[in-house]
């Protein structure tokens, strides 16, 4: 008889061993060592064995002792699911990998457009469904402990060593919470993988299988004496015939298969920790083998227990009590350890999976909403996540403990387990619909889950507390609110069904029905539709698409090629060389270690944006498909870059325009400067000629003696004439300068064209030697003008005297025509000479331009001044190309206001 202290010591030793194994595995995983072990298909298969909990270990025997072979359905369902891995599990694992799913709540919520409401619903349902299950594990550990402390009745009287079951359960719960906190939340990983926990679970799987087989071998060969004797004794026992109802056989098989897929802890080890299809196929035969071995000796143990142990002893404890009653303390101890490890592994993984869901879908959204904008440093969030995980683990464990205390540790283990299965199986329609049917919508999933869960609570959970427990006898008899079709065990008046079958059939079928109907009637949001396509077509991505890389791992070559495309060959090579050196490789490409890939992603994100870089690198290295959120982030970045490049384009266009303007301005300035130089040189020349003659003649006058009075008078008159010329030149220059600078003040008066012409002709021809005949039409000259008449006369004088000077006809004649048009008044001055040669026409308005043959009198400024005056007056002066002889046309605007406007504007421009 092992003492309680021994038992506790063994337990502590066992847990310490688990700690060590988990710790070593965690460290090896971090260093990237022992991949062959950590990622072997065997470990994967063994980790699936958390399906076999304390319920399996103790409860299966109790189940068999009560209802024969029915217990085996709990293993047949999962076996069938594993054997049919190709149909459902393969898809689930692929979706889980490509979407980086962290829990079943995450899977369902991301399938239906990352719906937070759905995630919360699934999380809450999972917590409600699994809490009794955790309580069940605590109960099984406490029961088996008490079996040691309080031996079967009749052997020994109760003694001082009897345990307090409440405090024992508390200690167990606290210890398990500690273990889970230590190994489940040591580090944060986006994939939510926990190699340490997986290895610990695998070790526990071996322990419990070994323990149960040991008890079985002891029973079959030690107590019964062989296989054939065993069969004979089984047939002779109370459960010696097949007595399973067909509907229960079918319903329980289905239920266990569904729960196998939907239990949060199973999802954690099967999908989240999965290593790919090959492991799944390995498990497709190895896990059924494990289950078969676990259930192989259940019936013999039950039969022998019923036979040997006193009537009334708890069949759930046959596994421990049978060796104890036979004095086989070693076997009993082993059996206890097996049960202990079944319970602990289940509790650890279940709380881990639930805490991930609670913290990811309930705590973090609330925290982020209340701390908006303050989570600027990633370290902040990380600490909060870890803290919320730990708190969630403790809270869930506390729930389990409270449920255990509240239920008083009563009830057969199998019944509690079945209820829990029924709760989580409600996820099945939404999950399967999500991965097989693109038409499934968020609203549909919410409705299905809600209806199924409500029916489950009403027909399975609440009745489990017994009549008059939560539901009164009235409700059982008359239905809810007196509605006969709402009786918890006879929905819609269908009576006579087994309560479990009734609850499973109604909850799942109403769940699936409302899920499908509401999905058909509702319309999904865009992100939902995208996710639907992603989930349903998850297997199509791998075939024939060159864009998808094998999941086997990052190829440095592929990364190199991609990096070259983004950074350019030289930079990419330099970066890879640097990384290779950092890894201690002399030449060649660096190994695609996580650190390197991270560095590369950082490097690339400098060029293409973080989301794009992540999407690209994970395409190559993770084999993970890009999620819709990733794509949207990429689109955002692209839009920003597009916007930026548009801005750049606009700016560069503006710059080009400005440059062109500057170039034009520069050309103008250069031209002006050139003109100024020309002007200055011409001016100096013009001034120099008269000055030279003035100087020479005045020197003669000063130095020559005995000069005659006639000579003196002749020379003095030459000097005088030259000074007059100089003065006129300076006057003209002054005039031109004033006109060009716009400083001219117009003296506006009214008068007729005829008057102005009269004055001009008289002035121009005064003292003229050669006769010039002027032909005018006085009738048409009676046009009233309102302008600066003096300036206009100046123009006319210049034109008339030019004609007089340059007309080379024998009988020079000037015709002056006046015409009124719609836009103003035209005055043409046309002589009968040869006209101006085409070459010269372009330059006659230039300063200092003189036609050949002119008597050397003018400075060549006349026409330039006239042209300038006309533009001041708002009109213009130009050469008439057509017609014989030299012709100039003076155009005057109709209204003076225009002229004034223009004059004003010009002066403003100059100013």
């Amino acid at each position, binding site marked *: 008889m092992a003492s309680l202290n021994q038992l506790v010591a063994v337990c502590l030793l066992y847990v310490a061993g688990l700690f060590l194994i988990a710790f070593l595995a965690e460290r090896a995983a971090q260093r990237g060592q022992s991949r062959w072990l950590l990622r072997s298909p065997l470990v994967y298969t063994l980790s699936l064995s958390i399906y076999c909990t304390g319920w399996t270990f103790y409860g299966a025997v109790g189940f068999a002792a009560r209802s024969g072979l029915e217990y085996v359905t709990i293993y047949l369902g999962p076996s*069938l699911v594993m054997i049919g891995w190709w*149909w459902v599990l393969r898809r689930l694992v692929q979706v889980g990998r490509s979407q980086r799913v962290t829990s079943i709540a995450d899977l369902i919520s991301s399938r239906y457009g990352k719906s937070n409401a759905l995630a919360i619903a699934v999380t809450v349902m999972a917590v409600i469904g699994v809490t009794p299950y955790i309580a069940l594990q605590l109960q099984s550990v406490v029961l088996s402990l008490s079996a040691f402390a309080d031996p079967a009745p009749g052997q020994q009287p109760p003694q001082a060593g009897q345990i307090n079951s409440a405090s024992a359960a508390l200690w167990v719960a606290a210890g398990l919470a500690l273990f889970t906190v230590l190994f489940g939340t040591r580090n944060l990983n986006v994939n939510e993988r926990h190699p340490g926990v997986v290895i610990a679970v695998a070790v526990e799987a071996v322990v419990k299988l070994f323990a149960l087989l040991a008890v079985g071998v002891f029973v079959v060969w030690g107590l019964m004496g062989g296989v054939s004797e065993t069969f004979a004794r089984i047939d002779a026992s109370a459960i010696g015939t097949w007595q399973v109802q067909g509907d229960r056989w079918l319903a329980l098989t289905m239920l266990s298969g569904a729960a196998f897929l939907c239990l949060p802890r199973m999802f954690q080890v099967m999908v989240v920790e999965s290593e790919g299809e090959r492991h799944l196929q390995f498990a497709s035969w190895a896990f*059924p083998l494990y289950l078969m071995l676990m259930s*192989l000796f259940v*019936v013999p143990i039950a039969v022998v227990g019923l036979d040997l142990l006193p009537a009334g002893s708890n069949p759930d404890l046959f596994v421990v009590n049978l060796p104890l009653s036979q004095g086989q303390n070693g076997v009993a101890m082993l059996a206890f350890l097996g049960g202990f490890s079944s319970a602990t592994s289940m509790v650890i993984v279940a709380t881990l999976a639930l805490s991930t869901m609670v913290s990811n879908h309930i705590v973090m959204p609330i925290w982020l909403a209340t701390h908006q904008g303050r989570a600027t440093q990633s370290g902040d969030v990380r600490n909060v996540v870890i803290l919320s995980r730990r708190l969630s683990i403790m809270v869930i464990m506390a729930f389990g403990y409270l449920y255990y205390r509240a239920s008083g540790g009563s009830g057969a283990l199998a019944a509690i387990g079945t209820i829990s299965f029924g709760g989580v199986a409600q996820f099945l329609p939404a999950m399967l619909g999500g991965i097989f049917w693109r038409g499934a919508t968020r609203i549909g999933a919410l409705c299905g889950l809600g209806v199924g869960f409500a029916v489950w609570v009403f027909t399975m959970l609440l009745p489990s507390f017994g009549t008059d427990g939560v539901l009164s006898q009235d409700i059982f008899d008359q239905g809810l609110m007196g509605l006969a079709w709402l009786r918890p065990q006879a929905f819609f008046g269908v009576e006579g069904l087994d309560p479990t079958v009734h609850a499973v059939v109604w909850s799942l079928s109403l769940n699936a029905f409302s899920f499908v109907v509401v999905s058909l009637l509702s319309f999904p949001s865009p992100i939902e539709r995208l996710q639907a396509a992603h989930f349903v077509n998850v297997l199509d991505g791998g075939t024939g698409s060159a864009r998808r890389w094998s999941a086997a791992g990052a190829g440095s070559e592929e990364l190199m090629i991609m990096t070259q495309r983004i950074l350019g060959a030289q930079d990419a090579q330099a970066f890879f060389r640097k990384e290779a050196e950092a890894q201690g490789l002399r030449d060649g490409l660096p190994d695609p270690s996580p650190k390197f890939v991270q560095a590369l992603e950082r490097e690339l994100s400098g060029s293409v944006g973080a989301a794009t870089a992540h999407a690209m690198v994970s395409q190559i290295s993770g084999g993970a498909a890009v999620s819709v959120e990733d794509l949207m982030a990429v689109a955002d970045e692209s839009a920003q870059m597009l916007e930026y490049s548009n801005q750049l384009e606009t700016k560069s266009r503006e710059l080009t325009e400005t440059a062109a303007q500057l170039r034009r301005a520069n050309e103008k300035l250069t031209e002006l400067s050139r003109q100024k130089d020309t002007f200055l040189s011409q001016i100096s020349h013009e001034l120099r000629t008269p000055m030279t003659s003035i100087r020479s003649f005045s020197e003669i006058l000063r130095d020559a003696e005995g000069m005659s009075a006639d000579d003196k008078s002749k020379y003095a008159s030459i000097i005088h004439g030259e000074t007059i010329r100089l003065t006129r030149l300076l006057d003209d220059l002054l005039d031109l300068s004033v006109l060009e600078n716009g400083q001219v003040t117009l003296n506006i008066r009214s008068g007729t064209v005829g008057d102005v012409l009269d004055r001009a002709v008289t002035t121009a021809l005064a003292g003229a030697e050669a006769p010039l005949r002027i032909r005018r039409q006085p009738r048409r000259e009676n046009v009233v003008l309102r302008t600066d008449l003096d300036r206009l006369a100046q123009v006319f004088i210049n034109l008339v005297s030019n004609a007089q000077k340059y007309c080379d006809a024998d009988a020079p004649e000037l015709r002056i025509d006046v015409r009124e048009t719609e836009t103003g008044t035209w005055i043409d001055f046309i002589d009968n000479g040869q006209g101006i040669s085409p070459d010269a026409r372009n330059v006659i308005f230039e300063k200092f331009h003189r036609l050949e043959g002119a008597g050397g009198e003018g400075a060549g400024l006349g026409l330039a001044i006239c042209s300038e005056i006309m533009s001041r007056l708002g009109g213009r002066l130009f050469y008439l190309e057509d017609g014989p002889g030299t012709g100039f046309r003076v155009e005057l605007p109709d209204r003076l206001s225009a002229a004034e406007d223009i004059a004003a504007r010009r002066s403003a421009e100059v100013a």
Partner: protein
Amino acid sequence: MAERAPVFLERRRYRARRMMDAVRLLAFLGIALWMVPLMWGVPGDGGAPMPMSAALRYIFGVWVVMVVVGLVLYRRTPMQADDRPTDGGS
């Protein structure tokens, strides 16, 4: 030999595809075999009840068959990644 190599390869690929078919269909065999007990009489139906030892032998026998066939198929389909196009029809 060079000419016959493709024939050999085709045949092997054909085999691999049929193996994958078997993987897919095995679950249906399992369902069919494990649902046979639905036809066994229960006490009260009249007729001889099925003895427990026979029921145990049958159910665990099916289990062993499933495991062995699964193992054989696992060894016979070494790299289904090569033959993903066989998905046709699913």
